[in-house]
């Protein structure tokens, strides 16, 4: 037993006491597939999730003070696609939605989101995200999880959404069509989600020449130190979950047939965003 093991057991004990009996009860209520070593086929492990829950719960409750509306629209079990707007330079919106489903949904659910293809090449991030239930964003992975009756979070705006400048806040970017084809193919209900707050967490401008130089999709700069959006502002998050929408049709239809269905989801999210913006008193409270 080395110093490392001693430290790990101390940390474990600390984390367990801080998380308390509520976490214990909620994680027991989850339906998670596990093998003899405690991992699901995608590398998700409840054992390693508790550390990130401790931090995320603080972000969710104290830092972003998230307010959740309509969580009862998320089906308690069975396959579902959560489709949300995406913004804020860093994907805290995904984290907050995940926490809402774990802490405020009844029964709690694990929501898994699809990460970009470069993520597995980044040290530590590569495996940590997979331990916490995130998956590489391929249609096959999504299909497999939906057929296993899991909940999946998608941001059809992708990088266009998360990296948009402050001037375009609450303006939805173009949606990809992949999520709709998957929903049609797997007969999965779509729950539209509007996230209010994330769009203001990092008021950034995009320095295009630098982005081009670095070959990245954007180079955001914020007007306060450290000038790159590493720390989000303590905005208040408001989440609106809409009623599930069921679509029918052929997943292999031309884009022209898919487009109106996607538009329907976009309009639903847009109108929830408007509703949320009208109802709030301020950005930070």
């Amino acid at each position, binding site marked *: 037993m080395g110093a490392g093991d001693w430290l790990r057991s101390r940390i474990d004990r600390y984390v367990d006491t801080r998380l308390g009996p509520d976490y214990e009860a909620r994680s027991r209520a989850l339906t998670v597939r596990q*093998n*003899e*070593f405690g*991992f699901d*086929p*995608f*590398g998700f492990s409840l054992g390693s999730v508790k550390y990130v829950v401790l931090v995320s719960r603080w972000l969710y409750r104290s830092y972003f003070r998230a307010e959740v509306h309509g969580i009862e629209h998320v089906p308690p079990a069975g396959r579902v696609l959560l489709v949300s707007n995406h913004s804020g330079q860093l994907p805290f919106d995904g984290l907050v939605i995940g926490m809402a489903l774990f802490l405020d949904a009844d029964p709690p659910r694990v929501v898994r989101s699809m990460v970009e*293809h*470069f993520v*597995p*090449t*980044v*040290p*530590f*991030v*590569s*495996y940590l995200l*997979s*331990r916490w239930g995130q*998956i*590489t964003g*391929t249609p*096959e*992975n999504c299909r*497999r999880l939906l057929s296993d009756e899991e909940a999946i979070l998608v941001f059809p705006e992708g990088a266009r959404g998360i990296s948009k400048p402050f001037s375009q806040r609450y303006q939805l970017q173009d949606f990809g069509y992949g999520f709709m084809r998957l929903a049609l193919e797997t007969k999965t209900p779509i729950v539209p989600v509007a996230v209010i707050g994330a769009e203001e967490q990092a008021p950034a401008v995009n320095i295009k020449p630098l982005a081009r130089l670095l070959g990245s999709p954007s180079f955001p700069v914020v007007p306060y130190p450290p000038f790159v959006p590493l720390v989000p502002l303590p905005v208040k998050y408001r989440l609106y979950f809409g009623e599930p929408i069921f679509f029918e049709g052929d997943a292999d239809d031309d884009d022209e047939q898919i487009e109106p269905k996607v538009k329907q989801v976009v309009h639903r999210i847009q109108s929830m965003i408007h509703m949320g913006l009208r109802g709030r008193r301020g950005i930070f409270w």
Partner: protein
Amino acid sequence: MASSGDGERRRVVVTGVAGRLGRLVARRLHRDPSYHVIGLDRRPFIDRPKDIEHHQVDLRSKRARDVFRTQRVDALVHMGFLHTPRATSAEHYSWNIGGTDRLLEYCAQYRVPKVVVLSSANVYGPRADNTQFLTEDAPLLAAQAFPEMRDLVEIDHMASSFFWKAREIETVILRPVHILGAVKNAPSNYLRLSVIPTLLGFDPMVQIIHERDVAEAIACGLKPGARGIFNLAGPGEVPLSVVLRELGRPTVPVPHPLAKPLWRAAWRLGLNSFPVDEFDFIRYVCMVDATRASRELGFRARHSLRETIHAVLDSRE
């Protein structure tokens, strides 16, 4: 066993029979009274049971052809591939590609009704954008990243084109995940190192299969009626770190920008026997969906994850 005469037994030629896995397959089939095993390997067959026939010949030689020409052969199990990292690529090519080409030709010429080729799930290649579970129709991209895999990919391609060309022959291509056991292959050798290098910040999910389960899968593939390409997975998926922890070996995490140059230097000095490019297997996911094998071959791994991991330390026959 004595009741069935030699005439009714299916005569199976097994290439690479003198290797660890080959011997396991020979024993598995030998126990079964419906098979008569004919070994084909240029190495001697140590501890050969008396009624297993063995021809110590080169696959490319005329005497290998005679095995097919002079007697009835009911099936070929082809697993005699050269994978010695230190051998030259010309030698690899001539043995692996040339040898496979000849064997398939004999099978067509002498009407061997069943061919089982042991390929590998490694032919898909470890890649950052791999989907978690690759199905049999995924492209074989391993050779893009590392040329050492070219032979294996080409053998797989040869076997699948044979599957389409020679429709009267039942061709079975098996693509098992990392085979663990006393067998001397890259993953088992890696796990037997006294200090195991890992890549700092990477811990991909891996699939492993017990060597005896592979022998069983080959027996499943020999069943009449079975044909096609099949991924073979073991009892489940675990992170690489769990395998290492289970074995209790000390590990050295190396930052990946440093790992390749260090490893290449060690390779040149002859300190290790892993080509640098195999590092991608401990960096990215290369896992398969094996539902087709369980549905059509009725194959299920019998050894648990723990048994499979500990099989690398097992030296018994």
